[in-house]
């Protein structure tokens, strides 16, 4: 690929503690994620998947190495620039949804946009469109405690995808969802990447990882293997054998 990566990790490492209690959460790792690309990260718990995601999103600082998002190195940029980038360019879907209980679903989605200077009316229109994309048009004006866990999760995903997010980071985004709904979430994530965003999906579900262009396997903080999406074999194309 000749395009510039949306996310570039170089020799990225994170160590907790020091001396005999030192833990290498992530060993020096290189990773590029290009526009249009969805990368799945798999591995057992403790393998560094979530560490990778929090570092990539600028939510934690690496022990060494660099994180570059849309050309800005998060490890050297000012706090203010990092905060702006996090708000505008990066969408997060984490295991705990972090919805604000005093705001409706639509308000939860509109809030970060308004903080970013978008006018309230436009932010609400965007929020309603994002909810509709997740099949949640009906619950726009309900509060988090009035909707199911699955609906809360999809609201959090709608919030992560609203606006022009160039980088989407998802940590087990299908956790509380049944298999069918989980699938539709993946389809939305896939569509967002097909439209030009870059995405990282941390998951332990092979069926969801299979939506990615590339699957990276982590073990003990290191990449041990990865798959590339190949051209689907002609054997499986209906009618190809005729």
């Amino acid at each position, binding site marked *: 690929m000749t395009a510039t990566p949306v996310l570039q990790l170089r020799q990225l490492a994170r160590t907790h503690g020091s001396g005999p209690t030192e833990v290498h959460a992530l060993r020096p790792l290189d990773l590029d994620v290009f526009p249009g690309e969805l990368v799945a990260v*798999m591995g*057992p718990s403790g393998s560094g998947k979530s560490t990778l995601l929090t570092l990539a999103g600028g939510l934690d600082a690496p022990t060494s190495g660099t994180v570059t998002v849309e050309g800005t190195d998060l490890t050297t940029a000012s706090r203010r620039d990092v905060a702006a980038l996090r708000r505008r360019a990066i969408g997060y879907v984490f295991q705990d949804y972090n919805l604000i209980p005093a705001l409706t679903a639509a308000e939860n989605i509109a809030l970060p946009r308004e903080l970013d200077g978008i006018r309230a009316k436009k932010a609400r229109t965007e929020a309603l469109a994002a909810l509709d994309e997740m099949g949640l048009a009906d619950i726009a004006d309900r509060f988090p405690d009035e909707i199911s866990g699955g609906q809360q999760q999809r609201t959090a995903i709608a919030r992560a995808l609203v606006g022009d997010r160039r980088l989407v980071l998802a940590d087990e985004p299908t956790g509380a969802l049944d298999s069918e709904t989980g699938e539709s979430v993946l*389809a939305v994530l*896939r569509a967002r990447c097909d439209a030009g965003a870059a995405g990282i999906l941390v998951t*332990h579900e*092979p*069926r969801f*990882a*299979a*939506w*990615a*262009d590339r*699957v990276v*396997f982590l073990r003990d903080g290191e990449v*041990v*293997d*990865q*798959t*590339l*999406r*190949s051209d*689907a*074999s002609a*054997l*499986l*194309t*209906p*009618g*190809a*054998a*005729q």
Partner: protein
Amino acid sequence: MSIRHGLLALLESGPRYGNQLRAEFESRTGATWPLNVGQVYTTLNRLERDGLVKPDGEDDSGHALYAITGDGRAELRVWYATPVDRQRPARDELAIKLAMAVGAPGVDISAVIQAQRAHTIGAMQDYTRLKAQALTTLEHPEAGSDDLAWLLVLEQLIFQAEAEARWLDHSEARLVRVARSAQARGDGTAPDRGRRGAARDAAR
């Protein structure tokens, strides 16, 4: 056997000739299990011998047609009503490979598992891409039962690969656990050389 019953099922909706049966079988299963026309005619001959189909003249272009018989319909009903046998599982090369790798000298079983996992998930990526296409096709108003049948077959391939990937994860975790408890006991007390070898492999 599946080709036999697959052909009977296609003939139930009316007489067909050999190449037509082959094409219809493949449009339902997306050429996942490609048939050649020779296999189709061999199967039709056996079905005719068993009284389940009979020759039914020719179409306008001179193709020899076959029709399902009353016995053929009865056979088909029994097939739909009977579960596919799981009592005697098909021989599985991967299961045999892992069984042989346990304790085999010079074999890193966790490397065997990882190589397979990457391959299996890679195959799932292919199937999933085809599935995404199939889902798009199904949204078209002119989509038919062939498109739905193909989606079901693809999803079967995905679920089967997923089961394999999960089993690999489980096997890896199992090997690590066995290795840890062997270490806790002290290497010398493990009763069986083969198992100890496997535990050491897993611990790497």
